[in-house]
């Protein structure tokens, strides 16, 4: 337990130190007694000091961008400007009820409207809906729109979504959620999509393809125009997974590449915080064909006032994906960040992200690491395979990851994409300095040296973290997912 007990273990029955709730209040009148709770829930009874101390201590057990280099590939862990946080949390924004009339939200609606416009500009698309609450929900919105498009045309045979083998897991999972079957296409040795296989895969049963470009292999899909032509010719539409937009911001537009719909993880490219798991924001942008189907609400403008456009205004919409308006507070953070960057700043994002990734790739290559696509430019990320080292020493990508923690670096993404064995997907981002990258190279070299001289030592890592390697098998077998009270078995009802 990392030295810090559970909050429940700080609790004592009868401790009453409330300052946050109203004074004692009688049970409601008029409610049938049978509907009332008889035993109180098992929440801790602690003072504010105990709570503050406990959660402050817990926070200190985390790695985070604010404390560590965090080169987690595909996740774009760059600096989250503090101004975005405080400005999105201004009392005037926080206090507004989601069902307050639009007339009472002109300030926030102005920001959202302008955000929609900026997102059109960075994608080249024609319509935007801000409502999806993370990348995966953006994917859902996109694929659901593709479905609605075919359905409205009566083209009901299209039951398949094509996904490359290197795709992120959310892509196939989303296709399934939308009721499609998934058909995988392979990658060629240069990291591009296998065009021959794609030609085989398309057909009248194909609704569309989901791609990210640059791909999760960290390289730009050079024949994207051909890919688009093949899919479009077969009657399918193209979905752009914008998780990697950071790599091409201001350099190329998904619309020009031939995509019909794109989601953007604002928590990646536009640097809203990931909060140890979320919230994100997975806005969708579409071309003309899919514009009518955008999920609602959308911010519109009428006679100089901003209004919510809902299902009544947009009857062909795929509908509503959240009870209100998605992760508004996150949208405001992205808005602040984009306004601070401006056009030039956005191009710098991709430029310096590419500089850092290519530099790190070059340095690691020169240091003798096996880079997955050494002949290619890295995008904002790249892959190192530790296959050779693992074979020679038994030290795996996982071991490297843990050894990095001991050296004060968060590990890169491991074992994704699945098709490169023993891989590290490394994304330094544009906000890290050259010094940090050099130190990271030195750490990887040192770990490799240790792997050769004393593999067991690397496999023993981490030693300096609050806990050492955890027993995952036991975690899944003897499920202990909730505390049940002093002296109670872990499993409960």
């Amino acid at each position: 337990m990392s030295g810090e007990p559970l909050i429940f273990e700080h609790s004592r029955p009868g401790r009453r130190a409330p300052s946050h709730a109203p004074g004692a209040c009688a049970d409601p009148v008029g409610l049938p007694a049978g509907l009332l709770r008889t035993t109180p829930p098992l929440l801790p009874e602690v003072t504010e000091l105990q709570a503050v101390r406990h959660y402050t201590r817990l926070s200190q057990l985390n790695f985070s961008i604010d404390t560590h280099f965090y080169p987690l590939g595909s996740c774009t862990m760059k600096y989250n400007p503090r101004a975005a946080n405080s400005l999105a949390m201004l009392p005037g924004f926080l206090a507004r009820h989601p069902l307050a009339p639009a007339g009472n939200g002109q300030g926030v609606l102005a920001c959202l409207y302008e955000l929609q416009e900026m997102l059109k500009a960075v994608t080249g698309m024609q319509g935007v809906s801000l409502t999806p609450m993370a990348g995966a929900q953006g994917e859902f919105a996109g694929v659901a729109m593709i479905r609605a498009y075919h359905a409205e045309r009566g083209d009901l045979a299209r039951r398949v979504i094509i996904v490359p083998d290197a795709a992120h897991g959310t892509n196939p999972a989303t296709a399934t959620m939308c009721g499609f079957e998934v058909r995988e296409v392979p990658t060629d040795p240069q990291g591009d999509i296998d065009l021959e296989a794609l030609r085989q895969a398309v057909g009248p049963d194909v609704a569309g393809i989901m791609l990210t470009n640059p791909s999760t292999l960290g390289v730009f899909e050079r024949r994207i125009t051909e890919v688009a032509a093949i899919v479009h010719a077969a009657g399918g539409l193209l979905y752009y997974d914008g998780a990697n937009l950071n790599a091409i911001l201001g350099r190329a537009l998904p619309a020009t590449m031939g995509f019909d719909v794109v989601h953007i993880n604002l928590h990646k490219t536009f640097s809203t915080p990931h909060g140890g798991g979320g919230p994100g924001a997975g806005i969708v942008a579409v071309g003309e064909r899919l514009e009518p189907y955008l999920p609602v609400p959308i911010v519109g403008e009428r006679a100089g006032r901003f209004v919510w456009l809902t299902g009544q205004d947009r009857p062909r919409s795929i509908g509503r994906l959240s009870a209100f308006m998605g992760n508004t507070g996150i949208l405001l953070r992205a808005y602040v960040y984009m306004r601070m960057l401006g056009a030039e700043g956005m191009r710098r994002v991709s430029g310096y992200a590419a500089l850092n990734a290519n530099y790190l790739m070059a340095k690691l290559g020169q240091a003798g690491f096996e880079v997955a696509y050494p002949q290619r430019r890295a995008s904002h990320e790249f892959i190192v395979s530790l296959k050779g080292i693992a074979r020679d020493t038994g030290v795996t990508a996982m071991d490297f990851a843990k050894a990095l923690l001991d050296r004060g670096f968060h590990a890169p993404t491991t074992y994704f994409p699945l098709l490169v064995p023993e891989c590290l997907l490394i994304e330094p981002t544009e906000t890290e300095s050259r010094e940090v990258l050099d130190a990271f190279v030195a750490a990887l070299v040192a770990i490799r040296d240790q792997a050769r001289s004393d593999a067991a030592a690397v496999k023993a890592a981490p030693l300096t973290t609050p806990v050492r390697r955890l027993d995952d098998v036991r975690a899944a077998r003897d499920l202990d997912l909730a505390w049940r009270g002093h002296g109670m078995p872990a499993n409960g009802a």
Partner: protein
Amino acid sequence: MPFIPHTPDDVAGMLAAIGAGSIDALFDEIPAALAVAGLPAIGPGLSEPEVSRLMLERAELDGRPLCFIGAGAYEHHIPAAVWQIATRGEFYSAYTPYQAEASQGTLQLIYEYQSMMASLTGLAFSNASMYDGATAFAEACLMAVRANSRSRSRRVLTTRALSPAYRAVARALLAGQGIELVELPLENGCSSLAALAPLAGTDFAALAIQQPGFLGSPEAVDELTDWAHTQGMLVIGVCNPLLLALLAPPGEWGTAGADIACGEGQPLGIPLSSGGPYFGFLTCRKALVRQMPGRIVGRTVDVDGRPGFTLTLQAREQHIRRSRATSNICTNQGLMVTAATIFMTLLGAEGLRRVAAQCHANTRALVTALTRLPGISLAFDTFCHEAVLRFDRPVAPLLEALAAGGILGGYDLADEYPDLGHALLVCATEMRSAADIDRYAQALGGILQGTTAGRGRRSRS
């Protein structure tokens, strides 16, 4: 170059190491036809002082009306400690805890959250959060359809007493898989028990009920649960977690308890914020855990035998199971869970109970004050922390006049429940004082008499 650390020397040295002539050269794999030179539609960057001024002005543009709207999002007091701790960089700027050893803070906190939600809902297991209450409800339906091996239907029985927004979201999310929602009609603001009999024997995977219902009145959860179970359905309970300090938890409904509980976490320390970010919670009976979507944290031990926490049951998830995953959810609402866990810790069971009871008392006071006005009556006698008022005329113009005087008078039910006549859903949380309620009654009285409220829209009391 805001946020970018590179000096000119760095750039030169790094390009040399790469063997590239310029930063632009790093993009030479982008076919020329696709390359764009910039983003002309986007303006120049603003400095932090500039953007701060802009946002301050926008945040203050619309005043701070006195709010009597609930309808799924509630203004509660949030202890100052909640967000001062939740926005600490170590929580705020971390990713999903993939590297458990470097993420024990987040992981232990989620384990504590899961424990609290399990206990609040009276069910065995909780996941680490869904996007919001509505998507949690939709995922609960999917889960029930997958889990109910006795049912061959792709239908879920629900009710018009369940939030219209939740039903709308569920329809959008379930459509692709051909899952259908069937709705029980209303009777006196609640799900009609009389409507059950004709449905007996029809195959539904689950019955989904909301307690209290969207219209504020408590549902007959015991009868509904037991009926559904006899019909071989699973039972999904949708709840306001704050009220669960006061109301019987889903796990105790009827003889066997509901099988799945879900709902909107916003009342637990999350600011209204125009609708998000909030979070959805989802808990279930032990046997259903492998159908649960989303992240789950488990407690285990490390190689030295020390207790520690880790993501577990990942084989259900998209990054392992891909197209056969329980859901496509990846990023969830972690930071909101952080805040909610601190909130529940600070309030405790007794604090939550008091807040819930005070909301009820205030709404009751509001109902009393407003029903003294001519042409306004209480629609349904029994209510929890919001209530429906019936008017003798359309509500919309009244709400507009109130808003002009700085009062948001409630949620107009005309669009969603036209059958209720001129009906308004009102809510007075513990944040509304007696003076606030009085101000509302005075203002509405004035409007009804054809005079305007005449108070400044910014002042609060």
